[in-house]
């Protein structure tokens, strides 16, 4: 091993992924620049003064490049060795936030490092959880078919999520559900994934789509399935029962369970908030709890400003966009948090549908490449890790873009490698470069 690395430092490194990484970070800086630039700003001055967000992001990127290089220069065995230790450290750090945490934007999930830098352990825990899961699943004594192994794996993945929820970081918590995908790849029953995805889609759909239309759609889907399976049904009548049961459950969820949760379990303001995340009004008079409490309270119009402005910015881009630095919504600062969570809007407005397709194409290419990398590993550790990274990327991309176009409630999740922010960029860099390091040693069996 040592000799092969002596030949060339970068042997076995997948340069396609490195180039993709570079391209995405560059697009990110460009997008942040578009958000911040005001007519008359002197370019050279602002970049080198380091006062603006895009110049800071350039600094972060340079730092991340150094970190990435270091990771490539390490030994793959380091990661298997440190997997469990880092996971425990991560969990301890997360627990520590409850004691010494700093409150930023209403979530007490940051540890002040001094010098104006803050660390968010939950962000780092993504890496640690991925490593720990890979480590656990790659152990020869783990037989993943056993239900208790599955539960333990789920526990490893979900413990940081639970802590994140306690820190009021719903978005970060949701990310950990991404670990269902590598678990599925490793033999978790498909039904769990199907049911989990279906349930998630159904809940969001019942928020977004008008109830009767959704019921109609569900019925239509059920009919299509029955028609498609008509031959199988002739042989086995139970399929009808299963499909009908699934239909009843779905419609029940949509018509009864979701409204019940919003009207009876949650408080009025919570329901309103969730509805407004997808750009909808919630009628508080339906809420039993608030009805009991105060009837005379005037219902404030829900604030769907974020989604509305985000949709306007993206929608006004058209097919080819308004052009570089010509986005009126971007320049007018109509979209809140545009350089972080809503960075996609600046791209959508300036470069339109074509630009969005290109970016999503880049992402999809990266995701496929990572899965391809996963499949070519000899060691389970590397494969599970590759799937974990792909899933985390996928989850971030899907949720972030969906929320900017009104397909998902607004949760604070950054767009990988593009959103402004050192923490987030560093996390994704580390995730990706560890994968590159492991992939470079794909012939090796790691334990």
């Amino acid at each position: 091993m040592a000799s092969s690395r002596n030949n060339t430092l970068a042997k076995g490194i997948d340069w396609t992924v490195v180039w993709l990484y570079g391209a995405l970070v560059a697009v990110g800086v460009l997008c942040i620049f578009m958000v911040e630039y005001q007519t008359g700003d002197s370019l050279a001055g602002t970049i080198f003064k380091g006062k603006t967000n895009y110049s800071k992001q350039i600094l972060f990127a340079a730092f991340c490049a150094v970190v990435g290089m270091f990771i490539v220069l390490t030994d793959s065995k380091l990661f298997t060795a440190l997997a469990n230790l880092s996971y425990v450290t991560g969990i301890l750090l997360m627990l520590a936030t409850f004691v010494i945490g700093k409150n930023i934007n209403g979530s007490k999930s940051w540890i002040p490092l001094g010098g104006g830098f803050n660390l968010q352990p939950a962000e780092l825990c993504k890496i640690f959880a991925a490593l720990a899961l890979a480590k656990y699943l790659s152990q020869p004594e783990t037989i993943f078919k056993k239900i208790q192994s599955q539960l333990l794996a789920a526990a490893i993945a979900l413990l940081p999520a639970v802590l994140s929820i306690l820190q009021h970081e719903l978005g970060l918590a949701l990310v950990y559900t991404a670990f269902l995908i590598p678990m599925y790849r490793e033999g978790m029953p498909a039904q769990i994934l199907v049911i989990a995805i279906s349930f998630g889609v159904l809940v969001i759909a019942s928020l977004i789509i008008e109830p009767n239309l959704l019921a109609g759609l569900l019925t239509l889907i059920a009919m299509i399935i029955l028609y498609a399976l008509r031959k199988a049904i002739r042989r086995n009548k139970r399929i009808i029962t299963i499909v009908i049961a699934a239909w009843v459950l779905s419609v029940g969820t949509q018509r009864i369970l979701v409204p019940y949760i919003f009207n009876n379990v949650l408080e009025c303001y919570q329901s309103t908030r969730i509805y407004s995340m997808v750009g909808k009004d919630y009628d508080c008079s339906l809420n039993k709890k608030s009805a009991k409490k105060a009837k005379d309270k005037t219902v404030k119009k829900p604030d769907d400003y974020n989604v509305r402005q985000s949709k306007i910015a993206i929608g006004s881009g058209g097919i080819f966009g308004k052009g570089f630095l010509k986005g009126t919504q971007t320049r007018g600062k109509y979209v809140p948090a545009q350089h972080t969570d809503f960075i996609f809007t600046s791209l959508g407005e300036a470069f339109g549908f074509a630009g969005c397709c290109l970016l999503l194409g880049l992402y999809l290419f990266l995701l496929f490449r990572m899965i391809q990398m996963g499949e070519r590993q000899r060691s389970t550790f590397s494969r599970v890790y590759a799937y974990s990274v792909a899933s985390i990327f996928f989850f971030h991309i899907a949720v972030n873009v969906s929320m900017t176009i009104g397909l998902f409630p607004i949760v604070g999740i950054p767009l990988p490698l593009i959103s402004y922010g050192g923490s987030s960029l560093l996390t994704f860099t580390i995730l990706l470069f560890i994968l590159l390091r492991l992939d470079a040693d794909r012939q090796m069996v790691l334990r």
Partner: protein
Amino acid sequence: MSVFNQSRGKIIQFIFAVVVLVILIQLANLQIFSAKYKLAAESNAVYRKIIYPDRGIIFDRNRKPILENIIIYDLMVVPADARGNDTAGLCALLQIDTTEYKKRMRDLIFKTGMVRPGIFEPMLSPEMFARLNENLYKFSGFSLSERSVRNYPYHAAGHLLGYIDEVDTTFLRVHKDEGYLMGDYAGRTGLERTYEKVLMGRRGVKNYIRDNKSRLQGEYEKGMYDTAAVAGNNMFSSLDVELQKMAEELMTNKVGSVVAIDPQTGGILCMVSAPTFDPNYLTGNQRRKHFAELLNDPRKPFNNRAIQNNYSPGSTFKTIVGIIGLSEGVIDEKFTVTCPGFFTGCGTGKPKCLDKGTFAFKEAVAHSDNSYFSTVYKRLLDQPRYKTTDSALNVFNTYAGSFGLGKRLGIDLPSERGGLLPTSDYYKKIYGNRFFPCNIISNAIGQGEVNTTMLQMANVMAIIANKGWYYTPHLIDSIEGGDENGLLESFKVKRWVDKRIPAQVFEAEQNAMQAVMEIGTAAASAVPGIVVCGKTGTVENYARVNGRVEKQQDHSFFSAFAPKDNPKIAIAVICENAGQGAWAAAPIASLLMEKYLKDSITGKARKDKYDLMVNKNLIPKLMRQEMIKNDSLRKKREGEIQKAKEEKLKANQQNAAGKVTTGVEMTPPKNNRKPANPFSTHAKSEGILSSTVEKRKKTYNS
């Protein structure tokens, strides 16, 4: 294990692809198939600012600007940035108290919000601007913003120049397709209104990007969709602003009107309606108050008495009767009439005449003999060749109508009235199917139903001066950049009076009018060294007082032109209820003619006369009573307000004394600001109406 689940890798890739596809579908839906987001973005972020061009400037005949634009400043504030200022210091600068400051801030925040600039104090006076400009750096959030307003540097000719005002709904309805918007300004009276199209210029549009708090961020698309504003065209008036100012001074504390025309062009040299007002009072930040004051004045200062009042022309009408009589041949210059004290032709003893004796045409005009012109008028209507009085009257009206009487002349000012030349139909309604010359004999001396405006009388003088032709009287001679809308065409047409009138008739009339100034009624008003032709008039008039019609003091009337050869000025003057024509109107006209023809008033006697005429207070008795009544009403009202204030203050003090025990000293509010009362000393001056009196510049010296 890995081999066992390898197909799942493909399934996961499939899931990724499907999710990305769903996102792409929604993106296509938003970006390609929904037009509403583009519209929403436009209305969000593009702000169309209308750029108002400078209005055109109006110059007088000597190229002096009489209506121009000046830049004045508004004090603007961004409430969000104005925190932590030395409020008391700013209030001291602005001479307001902190309560007022807070109130204005509150109103502004309500109106324009925290982060957009709003007008804290509009239209700063020059002193205030100077004071603020030096100190403004101390107060964050405050800034000065300039705007263009109309300015009348000579403080004269308010009635003629008019003013601009915000358009109202009626205006918008009438001018629907001319691009006016609510909040725009347009000329509402005078030349500002008539020549609105010329003066307004063309508005421009500038597109800005604005941010989420409606602050402007810069140009939209580098100004690609902007259109430039084009300034309004300047106009050159026939007015002589020095003459206008002098006429306004002479009409101080009088009610009436002066119109002077250049007979050779029809251009108006001066036109005064007294009482007049300083047009600058209707531009500043106090305009609403001044407007209300002027509107409530019993002398009706907004009324342009030169063109909007019909007056009986009195004896000046005899010039017309004489000319028609001579033309029709019912008399000649040697024809004489003897007056025993009254007109004998109708047997009613009316009208009376002042000078008894026998007069030929010239003397009859000079002494304004009523019997003579009653005889002429009766002869005109009795002519056998026209068979009936009806048709004879129609012939008379044809002649008189060709002098521009009985219909609007078409001056370039709005709301002109046309006077009245009563027709036979008019009289048939009164006297039944047949009427006789004696029914309407009063018209012979301009006291009957016949009515004229001052403009018409001045124009008649111009016609006599020109011996039979005139140009339509007008104020604007030319427009810079050409008369694109054809507004001046009608002023370039030479108009002839009835061609049946021979030139000798005009000569006879001119000689007679010259006699008026030399041996006749206006001999005292002769202009030294200049041959003037004039005619006095003394107009009986009546007013309804407490439901009863009462005879009032006569209107003083005078019309003239000069010099007799090569006439340069034709003038008509009326002073309401000021007695005989020779007492008030004739001297004023004489002084104005001297000023115009000789460029100044020379000689001590003439200067004394000028001072005498300026200082004469000839406000009609009825109006004076009305003014005193209004005045005392106002005083009473102000007294009551003052009293209420004092009582409130007392109550407050008592309350404070009851509550505050820490010995805080209560200072009563300063009350050294006297209510501005423009009418308090109206015997000597008329407040804003006669700004000319106090700071009178001796125009005749110039």
